[in-house]
């Protein structure tokens, strides 16, 4: 589904990603961990097409297509979804209205008819249950005045309505209380199927107890320095990042 080959990216002339290689197949869950500032969000944003980041080298194939040449909105319409680490507020625009506009944009792209109000409300009702989001958040302006946890949950609610093929969750767990974490993770799991894939960026092994990854990758200084199965997350929790960094330095010197 997704193939990242030797991806380099920079912002304002500073190289942040230094050759990322990653393959994600349909049905898989990949976790990306790594110290603060290592480039996890940058990778997520580059995949989503943020213009402030410039891909300077390498290639990304999404369903065989050249992802980097696609506009952000086309990526979204083709099924790439980013749950933002810092969801953005849009004053005066109701959450539900926003989401309907988004869903219809995706549907038009696919050559489907726009949803009518009745069907949409039905879908929303059903999806609110999935992530147990407070209905009062639906009519409030997008993210405006939402608590940190509410914002994160709202991102997953968007995901539940838009049903992306490739979801990238950037630290969706941070800011969620223990119960919310479980509910949101359950929601994500229910949305999984053999045709879609999830990339979870997280600092905590705890989330991975709920959303169990097939692969765990460690990102340091803009490179994936170690990949493994879900046990790698436990190892990291125990030993910290110094351990992988050292191993990496040794490998480079060798």
């Amino acid at each position, binding site marked *: 589904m997704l193939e990242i080959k030797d991806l380099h990216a920079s912002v304002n002339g500073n190289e942040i990603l230094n050759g990322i290689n990653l393959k994600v197949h349909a049905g898989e869950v990949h976790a990306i961990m790594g110290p603060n500032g290592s480039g996890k969000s940058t990778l997520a944003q580059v995949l*989503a097409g943020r213009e402030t980041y410039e891909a300077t080298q390498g290639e990304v194939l999404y369903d065989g297509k050249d992802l980097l040449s696609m506009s*952000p*909105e086309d990526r*979204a319409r083709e099924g790439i979804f*980013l749950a933002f680490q810092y969801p953005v507020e849009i004053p*005066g625009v109701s959450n539900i209205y926003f989401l309907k506009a*988004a869903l219809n*944009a*995706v549907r038009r792209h696919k050559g489907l008819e726009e949803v009518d109000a009745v069907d949409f409300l039905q879908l929303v009702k059903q999806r609110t249950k999935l992530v147990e989001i407070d209905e009062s958040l639906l009519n409030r*302006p997008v993210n405006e005045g939402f608590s940190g946890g509410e914002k994160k949950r709202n991102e997953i609610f968007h995901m539940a309505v838009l049903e992306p093929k490739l979801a990238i969750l950037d630290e969706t767990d941070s800011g969620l209380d223990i119960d919310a974490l479980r509910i949101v993770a359950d929601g994500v799991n229910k949305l999984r199927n053999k045709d879609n894939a999830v990339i979870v960026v997280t600092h905590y092994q705890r989330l991975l107890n709920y959303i169990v990854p097939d692969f765990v990758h460690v990102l340091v200084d803009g490179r994936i320095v170690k990949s493994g199965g879900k046990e790698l997350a436990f190892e990291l929790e125990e030993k910290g990042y110094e351990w992988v960094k050292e191993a990496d330095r040794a490998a480079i010197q060798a």
Partner: protein
Amino acid sequence: MNTETNTIEQLANSEYKWGFVTDIEADAAPKGLSEGIVRFISAKKNEPEWLLEWRLKAYRHWLTMTEPRWPNVKYSVIDYQDIIYYSAPKPKKELKSLDEVDPELLRTYEKLGISLQEQERLSGVAVDAVFDSVSVATTFREKLMELGIIFCSFSEAVHNHPDLVRKYLGSVVPANDNFFAALNSAVFSDGSFCYIPKGVRCPMELSTYFRINAADTGQFERTLIVAEENSYVSYLEGCTAPMRDKNQLHAAVVELIAVGDNSQIKYSTVQNWYPGDKEGRGGIYNFVTKRGKCAGKDSKISWTQVETGSAITWKYPSVLLQGDNSVGEFYSVAVVNNYQQADTGSKMIHIGKNTRSTIVSKGISAGRGQNSYRGLVEVKKGASRSRNFSQCDSLLLGDKCGAHTFPYIEVKNTSSKVEHEASTSKIGEDQIFYCKQRGLSTEDAVNLIVNGFCKEVFRELPMEFAVEAQKLLGVSLEGSVG
């Protein structure tokens, strides 16, 4: 400077290339302004002596005035002798079908969701038998007559209701009020008159659309609305469809008078006159005086405006709060794009006790547009326990445009309270990216964000108008963010 005068000349003399212009036949005054022209206009309209005298007085006063230069707008000198001040209203040149209409105009109509029939009406295509707007208007008018509501063109009112016109004309905006009001008073062509009798709540939105003979009110429009005790009226002016006009200078006067206790006038405007091209050539100068007087106790006047058109907009819909407990409101969205300039705001003059006013102004600047809010809140000595709340928000799209705020506050008693809030924000790259990440195009994203910004104002518009206004904003800002 020459180019500007040329533009006026071009606009005055030539037809638009898409033939969207009223045919002017011999029934027009020669160019220029003089006492003779004022007399000519009055005679053409068969006006009573008192009105001619009123016009002449205004004209003589106008001669002593100079064009105001304090607004924060730039334009070259207007040659008042190069304007035709009267041409008899003539039916628009009929086109056989929409195929003859400028395709760009049609595209805009489509974006605004204007029906085919309406497109035909707006662009002057011969109306077919099914859609007979005159008969619609007639039924409409009969309904109003049953209630005792008078709604007609200004000229008709002068002949059929001279006492009312004479009593109220100039009672809120005196003929010598300001340069453009004086000019209008001398040469006004036509406009609307509306009278709501005691105890009547007008059951429908009044709009010039339904007024017979609304065909060509011209550049110097005059509107007078009078509401008696316990009455209510909601009046709509303008439309979202782009309005082309041969006249570069527009100087209208609108007077609202909430005469009786507990009377209420709601006046909503959508202004979409030709803004000029992308390089700032052409476009309408819209210099308007709009003022309302709350004479009755507990009376209320609300102005709501969505201003997206015109090269230059200069207008300050105001309310004189004379009656005790009276309420004045001003809700405004002003959009400037490309080289448009707007200097707009409101004046709330608190005279009666316990009067209240609200000003909500949303200015949006894009391209090289310059948007100024200018407002005056004046609380007179006797206006004890009065309150004002003003909120002026500016939104910038891009970094070549500008937003300016000039609030003036004068409070002459200690029991009153005046609050002013202002903010300026830039439309965020992060907001646009967030929308795009959810599948929206840049244009839809901008549209959404801008409409969210204007929500408090749109809420005040009548429903259908609000929907149209939202689309209009999108069209006006098209291409303003990369």
